[in-house]
């Protein structure tokens, strides 16, 4: 014990200084910034392609907003003149851990709003908890349609379209590109997103072209890494088309192992979630691969001042162009900001007023116009786009881009996605 005493004595002055430094911050409490909890993958396989780009985009957006450098209609500093700050949490660890982290964010970190969640499982788990804790939570990237189709929430919003349109637009694009296709195979990860993608896609295909057959559906384990037998099985089916929702490291490993085996010499490849890591695949992706970006994001976003702003702000931080998770997170911040400012001008900035303002709102984003039209005004809809790869000077570019309006790719309010698909995808009234 004796030997430890001098150490704590040495530490004491440091502690006092630290406490003194903390004081001025506390005394600024009256114009305290708006605190936003940001939950995104900082570790694990989803960090590289989705989580970290989303985090870097969020930081760039917050800096830019606080400096008042965002183009109209978002020129006001921060949220309605008040600066914003982030409390960033790692989404890794599963839904149970995330529920605990969410409570921490609300009760200990005292955040005013939460923007977060890439994993569909996390979104499904968080939504009821956010409702119970009455904390306005904006889901920014997860895709499952079930959130607002199976339940309704007051405090939960999602500012990006759900994943149904990925399958619908993907199939439409594919049938345009390969009208004579006779069959297709799939390779998707054996977990919620991979299974949903495959189920949706097969449903759309059998609605649009009942005669086209499924040759095989490979469902490797998430993170499997070795795809030798799967590739052999796919090669043997000799399918016209191969559908895949693989992403990140699994997609890269699959492409690395499939390319030398001439897999795509006679099979058209469609990657529903292929956009985020496209810049990493030169040489490992055949020209003409159909690529989805889960909305009109990235290269599919039409030119606008907001798009230019996001690209510039993100590039400064990350050194490369933003991918779709960066666009998703931008939608969340800008949608919330627009609602906050509308509420402030109307009645006040309390959560109830912001909710009223965000419901059924329409706002501009780097990906174009976003309409909060589903899920009783809590679920965003946008059109979407698909394109095909073409390698130019060692860089992968997207060409032959086609846009699909909302009514063509999304079920209207009150109709569940799978029912709508099976019913022939009749355009609803929007």
């Amino acid at each position: 014990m004796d030997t430890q005493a001098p150490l704590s004595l040495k530490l004491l002055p440091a502690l006092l200084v630290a406490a003194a430094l903390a004081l001025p911050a506390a005394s600024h409490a009256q114009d305290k910034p708006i605190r936003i909890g940001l939950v995104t993958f900082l570790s694990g396989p989803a960090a590289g392609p989705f989580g970290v780009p989303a985090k870097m985009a969020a930081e760039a957006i917050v800096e830019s907003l606080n400096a008042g450098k965002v183009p109209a209609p978002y020129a006001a500093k921060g949220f309605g003149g008040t600066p914003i700050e982030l409390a960033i949490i790692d989404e890794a660890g599963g839904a149970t851990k995330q529920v605990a982290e969410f409570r921490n964010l609300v009760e200990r970190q005292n955040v005013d709003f939460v923007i977060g969640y890439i994993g569909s499982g996390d979104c499904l788990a968080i939504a009821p908890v956010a409702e119970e804790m009455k904390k306005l939570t904006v889901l920014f990237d997860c895709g499952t349609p079930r959130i607002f189709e199976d339940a309704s929430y007051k405090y939960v919003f999602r500012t990006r379209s759900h994943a149904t349109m990925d399958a619908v637009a993907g199939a439409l694009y594919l049938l345009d590109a390969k009208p004579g296709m006779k069959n297709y195979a799939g390779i998707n990860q054996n977990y919620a997103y991979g299974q949903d993608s495959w189920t949706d896609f097969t449903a759309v295909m059998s609605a649009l072209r009942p005669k086209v057959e499924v040759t095989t559906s490979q469902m490797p384990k998430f993170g499997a890494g070795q795809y030798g037998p799967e590739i052999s099985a796919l090669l043997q089916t000799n399918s016209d088309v191969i559908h895949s929702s693989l992403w990140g490291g699994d997609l890269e490993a699959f492409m690395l192992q499939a390319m030398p085996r001439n897999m795509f010499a006679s099979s058209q490849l469609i990657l529903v979630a292929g956009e985020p890591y496209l810049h990493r695949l030169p040489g490992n992706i055949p020209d003409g691969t159909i690529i989805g970006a889960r909305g009109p994001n990235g290269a599919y976003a039409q030119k606008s001042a907001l798009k230019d702003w996001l690209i510039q702000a993100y590039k400064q931080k990350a050194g490369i162009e933003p991918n779709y998770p960066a666009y998703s997170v931008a939608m969340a911040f800008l949608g919330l900001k627009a609602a906050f400012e509308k509420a402030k001008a109307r009645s006040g900035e309390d959560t109830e007023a912001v909710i009223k303002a965000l419901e059924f709102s329409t706002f501009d984003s780097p990906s174009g116009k976003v309409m909060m039209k589903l899920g009783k005004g809590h679920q965003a809809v946008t059109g979407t786009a698909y394109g095909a790869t073409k390698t130019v000077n060692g860089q992968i570019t997207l060409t032959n881009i086609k846009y699909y309006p909302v009514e063509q790719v999304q079920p209207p309010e009150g109709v569940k996605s799978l029912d709508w698909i099976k019913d022939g995808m009749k355009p609803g009234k929007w």
Partner: protein
Amino acid sequence: MVQLLAVLIDGLIYASWLFIIAVGLTLIYGVMKILNIAHGSLYALGAFTSVTFTSAWFAHGYPAMGSYAMLALAAVVVGLVAGPVIERGLLRFLYGKDEVVLVLVTYALFLILEDLIKLVWGVDPLFVQGPKGETPYALLGNFSIGGLTYPTYNLLLVGVAIVTAIVLTWVLARTRAGKLLIAVIHDRETAAAMGIDVGRTYFVTFTLGAMLAAVGGALTAPTVSVVTGMGAEVIVIAFAVVVIGGLGSLPGAALGAVIVGLVRAASIHYRPELELFAVYFVMAAVLIVRPKGLFSAAEVRKI
């Protein structure tokens, strides 16, 4: 017929990969009675170090064929550095403790190493790839069997697995060092009393085991994108292989790898929806019949 052939080839390739990964795990357990969870991290370290070494090689513009030497060098360096550091710096203080304690210690080590890898290499997946996209995986060209194309690199994998198995078997059965090792496996205390340097045996075994894990990582690196968390994925399947064969048994690891490889390939070709289930079903079935695995050595009774 073609499909059956494909199952055999795919199964054999996958089994070779599994064996290279699992053999170090079973070796360390056999000699030291440590179920080394950190084996997965050593595998990942081997892969990440390969990326660094091959990138440096390609960056200097050296001939691409030399990248294979870099893979080998990476495995040797990781084995010779991480093995001794972990054994001398941590494990040697814990010999004689309960096996469960050692599992927890190596699990803690696994978590630490995972974060260390993240600190050093970041979270972005990495490639073993030259500036013009040349990878050791595609460099050797392809071969075709029954209309199916395979990269020749897979033969390298099979070759390494077979050579590893032969060399290890020969060392254990035919050399003095191997006989001393078997003495330590059977009874550590008696062996020590007879004058065998048990500490040194453990040191060499662990370093060799670590190197084998790193070889697995280095050989895998060109076929995947090297990403944090890859170590966690292999430890589970390697454990399944070793348990099927019998913990600590060399022929057990080989047979376990072949069984898992063939079962997985067969289910992918014939019933893809059962793939996840099939491997663990076989493991459960084996354990019901032989709770200690197929090749478990009869327990030496101690009074």
